[in-house]
């Protein structure tokens, strides 16, 4: 797990993002057990209450569920991974579009440059 | 409290052993000079050694307390869940044990050095009552003076913040308090001259010419009742106040 945190924003949100990322990339699969609050806190050197908050928020969002005494587990919904993927992609795209717009690109230009760059990346492997 | 005593004895173990070994070796050396030097010189030196050792250990006992109050080791001691009473009692008792060990070693070596043959039969001459009176007075003397000095140290520290001033203050308080208490004791002895004869427990009224609060005339040992009571009350007052100050008022810088 990436332990480079940005201390300027709430850490619990960053932990949530890390876990979401792990789910999307397949590092964590459905029904996997998340590390205990203590383990995470120890590994990341973060306050256990912060980890707890992240887990609680993820549970509220329906991404994980907690079984008392056993631990916290990734949810079971098959669509969940896809939904998360789409949601995270949207965030990336939205902020990308905003930045491109601030550089002066209009919608067509944005689509053209994205196609061009994606082809380049594909060609270069 | 007994745990405190255990650790304090361990902490000063080397010092005690060091002093005793020094006294023993020095006396052995003196013994080798027996035919050569004048016996009075040998005795004199031996006695000096004994007195020196006693002074050293007594001052060491005071120094330990000083380090607690004015130095870093107090942080460990005063954060323990121990009451002021426990701390003072263990400190005084530890000091008593240490001083007694040194005194015993020094006096015994002194005796060995001075005497020509080892004949301990003179011990038979002592009566049990005299011995117990002697031991009680000895213990009382040490405990009282240590408590008195520790009281002055604690008051000095509490009343005058700051290390140097605190120590000087303690000393001044010691002088003042000694004078006051002696004067009061003297007045009381004269005001209430009833004395208790410890041999037959009779109460007589001693002549006011005899100013001391305890006299030993021949086989009789007398002590002034009123001043003894005063001494005991003073001791209790000093002890209680010191414990209270340690509990409630002591600030470690």
């Amino acid at each position: 797990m990436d332990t480079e945190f940005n201390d300027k924003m709430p850490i619990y949100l960053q932990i949530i993002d890390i876990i979401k990322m792990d789910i999307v990339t397949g590092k964590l699969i459905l029904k996997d057990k998340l590390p205990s609050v203590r383990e995470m806190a120890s590994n990341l050197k973060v306050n256990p209450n912060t980890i707890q908050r992240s887990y609680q928020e993820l549970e509220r969002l329906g991404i994980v569920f907690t079984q008392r005494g056993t631990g916290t587990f990734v949810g079971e919904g098959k669509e969940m991974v896809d939904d998360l993927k789409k949601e995270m992609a949207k965030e990336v795209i939205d902020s990308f579009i905003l930045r491109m717009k601030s550089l002066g690109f209009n919608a067509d230009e944005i689509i053209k440059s994205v196609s061009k760059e994606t082809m380049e990346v594909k060609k270069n492997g | 409290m007994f745990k405190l005593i255990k650790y304090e004895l361990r902490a000063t173990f080397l010092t005690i052993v060091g002093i005793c070994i020094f006294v023993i070796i020095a006396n052995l050396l003196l013994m080798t000079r027996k035919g050569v030097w004048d016996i009075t010189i040998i005795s004199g030196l031996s006695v000096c050694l004994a007195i020196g050792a006693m002074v050293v250990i007594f001052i060491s006992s005071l120094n330990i307390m000083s380090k607690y109050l004015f130095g870093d080791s107090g942080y460990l001691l005063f954060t323990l869940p121990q009451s002021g009473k426990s701390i003072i009692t263990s400190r005084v008792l530890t000091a008593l044990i240490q001083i007694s060990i040194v005194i015993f070693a020094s006096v015994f070596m002194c005796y060995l050095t001075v005497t020509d043959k080892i004949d301990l039969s003179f011990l038979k001459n002592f009566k049990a009552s005299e011995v117990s009176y002697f031991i009680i007075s000895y213990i009382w003397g040490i405990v009282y003076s240590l408590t008195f000095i520790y009281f002055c140290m604690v008051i000095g520290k509490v009343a005058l913040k700051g290390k140097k001033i605190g120590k000087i203050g303690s000393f001044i308080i010691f002088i003042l308090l000694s004078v006051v208490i002696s004067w009061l004791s003297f007045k009381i002895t004269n005001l209430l001259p009833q004395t208790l004869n410890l041999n037959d427990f009779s109460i007589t009224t001693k002549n006011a010419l005899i100013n001391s609060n305890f006299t030993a005339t021949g086989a009789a040992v007398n002590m002034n009742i009123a001043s003894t009571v005063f001494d005991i009350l003073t001791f209790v007052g000093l002890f209680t106040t010191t414990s209270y100050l340690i509990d409630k008022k002591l600030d470690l810088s």
Partner: protein
Amino acid sequence: MDNILESKKICKSYLNKKALRGVDLNIIPGKIVGLLGPNGSGKTTFLKIAAGILHPSKGEILIDGYIPGVYTKSVVSYLPDNEYLLKWMKVKDAVMYFKDFYADFDEKKARELLLFMDLDENSTVKSLSKGMKEKLKLTLVLSRAAKLYILDEPLGGVDPTAREKILNAIVNNFRVESSMIITTHLVNDIERIFDDVAFISDGEIVLQGNAEELRRDKKKSIDELYREVFQ
């Protein structure tokens, strides 16, 4: 929930200066609180009052509902900033000492921590480097199951590897029934461990709050906030 530490308008005055001018700070169980401020701000003074070795001039402080005294000393585990370990001791003597005087001392945990910190039981306190002494002090303090841990500059004068270990030990020691109050200059290294922070300047708390909320609201790290408050 009852406060483990409750201070109301704590003042401490000396002849020539006022170290604390009315500090209000409450800590509930299960929290790690950072008390942040420069030298002379009064943070050590406050901690000493909570530890029971200093008495406030005015105001009230309660630890687990009690005025500092013999009981509070039995539930408070205090790590002072200075060299307070007895020099004649070996590491194992220090462990025994704590075991003898504190009912809540866990010897097994102490030995585990000593191993973790690479400390040899048989070394004398005198022979330890500054970093090793800090690790030993922390081992002893954290091996107690206290209600309140008071750590005064636990990372002071310690090299980065030792700091890692110390931070690890602190995080691993967290228990829901107990709380910690930690002071430090090295805010950057330790800020993720704090639940709440209180900035103290010249004897008064000038800013306090939940660390995450402060990050969200001010869009700054606690370290940056610290620099800002005390520039």
